[in-house]
């Protein structure tokens, strides 16, 4: 009888130690997930994590921008059945690719934020493109219901394969000047995307505009005012005869023949 009590006590003691170990292991896992920013609920409303950006390089501990590789073009269809191809190496701008799904709950906040530049507060000249899987994997009407038309939405399963997207949401930042990926990974909070782009912009410096392209920002009254200023600076004021050409020669005085360069 005494032996039975001793054995039972020993077994209970061992089980207690086992349960305590499991609880501690579980706590370690939860703490690690918390540090990574994984939480419950709307990612956009979660408090800022201690770690500002949790983007991960493809090879932990080794990843640098140059190792992320060339970013291929995105080609597919739009939710309305049109065709769309986006080249990510044809400007000096950054392109932020958001690989989202229509059905993933973790994507909801990113659908809204990526299509609302004011909310995302990305640096100027950052292009945003949302990429879902193709119509063989997504229902176009459901994707269309989430698209506002403010940023391109391309449905392309091939792009997911090209970029080796492990799941959604997933993000890739491409430097258009080099055509290379400068960051990629998962994000749990919208603010992390802004931080990623700002860091990349800081790392690259302010060498934009080397392709000599025109400005995109002016439109409407601002554009009209800017034109008025330029004309006034050139001595051309309202009523100036040059504003009312009578013939093509007035507009293109050297049109015939075209001067050789």
């Amino acid at each position, binding site marked *: 009888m005494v032996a039975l009590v001793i054995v039972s006590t020993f077994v209970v003691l061992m089980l207690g130690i086992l349960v305590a170990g499991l609880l501690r292991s579980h706590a370690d896992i939860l703490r690690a997930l918390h540090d990574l920013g994984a939480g419950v609920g709307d990612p956009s409303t979660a408090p800022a994590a201690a770690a500002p950006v949790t983007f991960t390089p493809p090879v932990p501990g080794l990843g640098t921008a140059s190792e992320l590789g060339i970013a291929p073009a995105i080609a597919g269809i739009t939710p309305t059945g049109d*065709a769309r191809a986006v080249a990510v190496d044809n400007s000096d701008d950054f392109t932020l690719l958001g690989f989202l799904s229509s059905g993933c709950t973790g994507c909801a906040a990113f659908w809204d934020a990526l299509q609302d530049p004011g909310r995302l507060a990305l640096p100027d000249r950052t292009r945003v493109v949302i990429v879902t899987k193709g119509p063989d994997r997504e229902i176009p009407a459901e994707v269309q219901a989430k698209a506002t038309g403010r940023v391109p939405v391309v449905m392309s399963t091939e792009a997911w394969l090209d970029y080796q997207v492990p799941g959604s949401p997933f993000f890739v930042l491409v430097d258009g000047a080099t055509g290379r990926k400068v960051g990629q990974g998962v994000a749990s909070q919208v603010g992390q995307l802004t931080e990623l782009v700002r860091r990349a912009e800081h790392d690259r410096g302010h060498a934009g505009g080397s392709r000599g392209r025109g400005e995109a920002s002016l439109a409407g009254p601002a554009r009209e005012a800017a034109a008025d200023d330029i004309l006034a600076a050139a001595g051309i004021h309202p009523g100036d005869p040059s504003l009312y050409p009578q013939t093509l020669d007035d507009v293109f005085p050297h049109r015939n023949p075209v001067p050789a360069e």
Partner: protein
Amino acid sequence: MATIGAHGITARLPQGFEGRIFVRPASVGVTYPVGQFATFPIPDDIGDFGSGAVTLMGPSDVFSTLFEYGHESVGTALFAQQGRPDALLESDFSPITLRRGIPGQSGTQWFFTESGRPFAFYAVLGSHSQRAALVPHVNTLLSSLVLSPAVSDVPATRPQWN
């Protein structure tokens, strides 16, 4: 090199090009397919012939539009040419052939019928002085286009999984 296709138009885009082939929603009447291709990021809210885009071009850029007209245009004098031009010449581009005259740029426009569909092809060079280097890009794009006889679009297949 990306390939896109919709509405009976397929384009194998040369390196550095991006593009879109779309049909605008018709508020009144009927709208027809438009293809836009460029060597720079194409904004979503530009006009069919590039208004809002050509001002963004750099001197080494190219923009082009393939615009389909209504079937009633088939057989008219404007669309009498059968098939697209084989290859554009530097002399085909002129600063006065622009929808919106922008200093330094030049353009060309062609009307033709192909696969029973009437089209206009309009291209803009970012710099007329660089036409020797830019026109080959336009020709590469032009030759990559596949224009099929008009067919109704096939509805998207049901997804297998999400």
